[in-house]
């Protein structure tokens, strides 16, 4: 690696602090988002930052390099980089620091890369920005970097555009960009949140390797305890824009001091815990899926894309009162299956037989992933929940109103909120509304497509509990789709593992986790983040 490397002598690793943040305050207009955050990052160290959505993690990160979106601005405190206060630096001087001494990578690798620039151009931009003018040298460095982050056959991919890479590869490219100028500090804001467990694992390993090989100090922001546990020596817990606790990861995980941290940890689903699903429902199945196939005609603006086989012959059975968990990486066909079950996608082949009482269109309902886009912003909660009732002509106006109130209470919301609009609810509450809507036409099967993936762990737990409770009370059969194995094991009787549009393994929840049969299931399990500390100092 070239001479400018700042690989610190092992001696001062973890002692000399590169980055010193003192009482940092950020406000968006009046509203304060970060109120007095202080921490220090030692050279070559790894510091994890956890906290619920909206607690100020990203804002803090952006504030370090004064990259806040308007109207955000740093209202107090200092950011010392080797003693120099970045908060006081003029813009140009700060630019020289960005990417050169402190680099950042962001959550969504797709939107964070420029769609019209090739990978090579991206890297050239990064290098050029800090005076690498020699084209040949830049090219060599580009290859070197891509190789470093593990892009196979770099020379061939240099001319490709971001959209031609997989999610994981894109994130690798982001990292390559960040490392282009051998920064002392690498800030990673939720670098793996958008990725599958398997990919996530690889990326975290990569960061780990970088940290060891180049001695780059890493500030890793995430809301996933598991990720931290795996990859950070030190840990910092944020809540409402404040630091509630920080210290060695191992210690905090084993005995948290602050009540908030305790709650947080408690909420985290652990893969080791056995399924909480009660009873062993079987007998006559309620739902029988055989040889289900679905192929999407690929359609592009220019010419046609090759068609995508989302479901390649899926067989499933669902018993009354049973929870069937479905796991699988992104794109494996989970949502397509769900939609086929509720009949919005008509399958190309195969059958879905509903053996229960009543009209399947009414008896099979669905809970959606995104609590924000799945509720019509123009309708009041009452109207939203009443929609299925109207559609299925259930009861008159008064009856519907009563039912809505009843449902709201069931999902733990105040009936008085029926005439408010979704925007005035939190994510968790919205998901409850979604559930209420699904329950309205008294379904016997509830298909939940990643119902908790978008929620913070604490909220996740609540929603999961709600679903379990409803199932018990209403004897619902539930199809529970998620990519987080831990959650799925927790709630399911049985688990089906999907891979490339096929169910590769089905089995008793606990058994499948403890003693996986299929190769793919094993990789999935291996990749799943665990709360047990993997690295010590």
């Amino acid at each position, binding site marked *: 690696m070239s001479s400018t490397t700042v690989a610190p002598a092992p001696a001062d690793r973890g002692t000399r602090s590169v980055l010193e943040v003192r009482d940092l305050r950020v406000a968006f207009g009046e509203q304060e988002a970060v109120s007095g955050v202080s921490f220090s990052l030692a050279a070559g160290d790894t510091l994890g930052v956890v906290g619920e*959505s909206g607690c100020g993690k990203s804002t803090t990160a952006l504030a370090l390099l004064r990259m806040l979106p308007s109207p955000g601005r740093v209202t107090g405190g200092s950011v010392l980089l080797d003693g120099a206060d970045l908060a006081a630096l003029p813009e140009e001087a700060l630019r020289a620091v960005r990417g050169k001494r402190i680099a950042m990578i962001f959550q969504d690798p797709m939107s964070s890369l420029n769609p019209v620039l090739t990978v090579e151009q991206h890297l050239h931009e990064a290098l050029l920005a800090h005076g690498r003018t020699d084209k040949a040298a830049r090219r060599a460095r580009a290859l070197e970097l891509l190789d470093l982050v593990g892009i196979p056959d770099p020379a061939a991919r240099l001319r490709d555009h971001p959209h031609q890479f997989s999610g994981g590869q894109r994130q690798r490219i982001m990292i390559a960009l960040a490392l282009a100028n051998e920064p002392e500090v690498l800030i990673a804001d939720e670098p793996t949140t958008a990725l599958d467990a398997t990919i996530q694992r690889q990326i975290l390993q990569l960061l780990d390797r970088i940290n060891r090989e180049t001695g780059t100090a890493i500030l890793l922001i995430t809301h996933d305890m598991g990720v931290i546990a795996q990859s950070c020596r030190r840990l910092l817990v944020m809540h409402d824009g404040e630091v509630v606790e920080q210290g060695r990861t191992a210690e905090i995980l084993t005995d948290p001091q602050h009540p908030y941290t305790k709650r947080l940890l408690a909420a985290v689903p652990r893969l080791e815990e056995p399924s909480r699903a009660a009873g062993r429902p079987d007998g006559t199945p309620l739902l029988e899926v055989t040889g289900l196939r679905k192929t999407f005609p690929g359609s592009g603006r220019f010419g046609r894309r090759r068609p995508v086989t989302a479901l390649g012959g899926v067989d499933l059975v669902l018993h009354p009162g049973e929870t069937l968990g479905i796991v699988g990486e992104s794109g494996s066909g989970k949502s397509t299956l769900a939609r086929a079950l509720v009949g919005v996608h008509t399958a190309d082949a195969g059958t879905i037989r509903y053996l229960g009482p009543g009209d399947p269109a009414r008896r099979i309902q669905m809970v959606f992933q995104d609590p924000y886009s799945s509720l*019509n912003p123009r309708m009041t909660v009452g109207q939203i929940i009443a*929609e299925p009732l109207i559609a299925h002509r259930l009861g008159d106006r008064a009856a519907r109103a009563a039912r809505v109130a009843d449902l709201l209470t069931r999902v733990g919301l105040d009936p008085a909120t029926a005439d408010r609009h979704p925007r005035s609810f939190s994510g968790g509450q919205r998901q409850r509304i979604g559930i209420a809507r699904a329950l309205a036409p008294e379904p016997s099967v509830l298909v939940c497509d990643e119902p908790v993936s978008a929620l913070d762990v604490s909220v996740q737990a609540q929603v999961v509990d709600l679903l379990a409770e409803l199932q018990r009370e209403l004897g619902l059969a539930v199809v529970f789709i998620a990519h987080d194995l831990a959650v799925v094991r927790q709630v399911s009787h049985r688990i089906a593992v999907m891979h490339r549009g096929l169910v590769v393994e089905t089995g008793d929840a606990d058994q499948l986790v403890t003693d996986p049969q299929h190769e793919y299931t094993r990789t999935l399990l291996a990749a799943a983040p665990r709360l047990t500390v993997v690295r010590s100092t």
Partner: protein
Amino acid sequence: MALLLTRRRRPGLLSARGLTGLALVGAVALAGLFAPLLTSYDPVAQSDLALAGPGADHLLGTDDIGRDLFSRVLYGIRTDLLISFTAVPVGALLGCAFALLAATSRWADMSVQRLFDLILAFPGLILALAVTAILGPGALPVVIVIALAEIPGFGRQLRAGILVQREREYALAARVGGASRLRVLVRHVLPNAVDPLIVQGAVAMSVAVFIEGAMSFLGVGVRPPEPSLGSILSQSMAYLSTHPAFAIAPLTAVTALVLGFALIAEALNKGIRR
């Protein structure tokens, strides 16, 4: 997820920009509305005193056949607003109707788009000449031409909106809830897709004032002697070198209107782009 990041203050109409726009349009509109109170002159009454400059008894002077310009401009504003406020809604409704039709099937979509292309491709001024020649002069052809011209704008806007909103999960949810395709389209998708049309509307208003002017200039505007901003303006053009004052009044009114509507549009736009 930093969804909260997207929460932003909505400037909308109440932003400085929006208020300026409202003020401009409002002022002009009121002037037109209260024309009878503001001037004692009959806008079509002629006199020997032609092309008089601004003065005591004729605030803005008189036109080439001795009519009081001030009152003509005031009543002209009426005409223009009347035309715009009928033509634009008509165009908007038709555009939306087509957009909805397009949403019903691939085939419909294709044909509707071709229709829009056709309208857009057709040289507007020639269309104006033709329509007037067919229907005879008057406000009606002007309204029709404007409405026609506005159809694709609204249509395309709404179509795009529908395409986006349709893919939102709430639309899917409605389907799962058992709602019919039509109900999903009308009850769920449409209300969420109409927002940008407000902007389009404001833009369209200014375009309308414009088309009226161009048509008058080609001698196919509203039927004389009814005053309209466009007709006064085109009338004044022949005297621009000798009596510039003649052109200033109508020009100010037109500019104020167009500027106002444009500002309103911008403000709304900023407001909607949450």
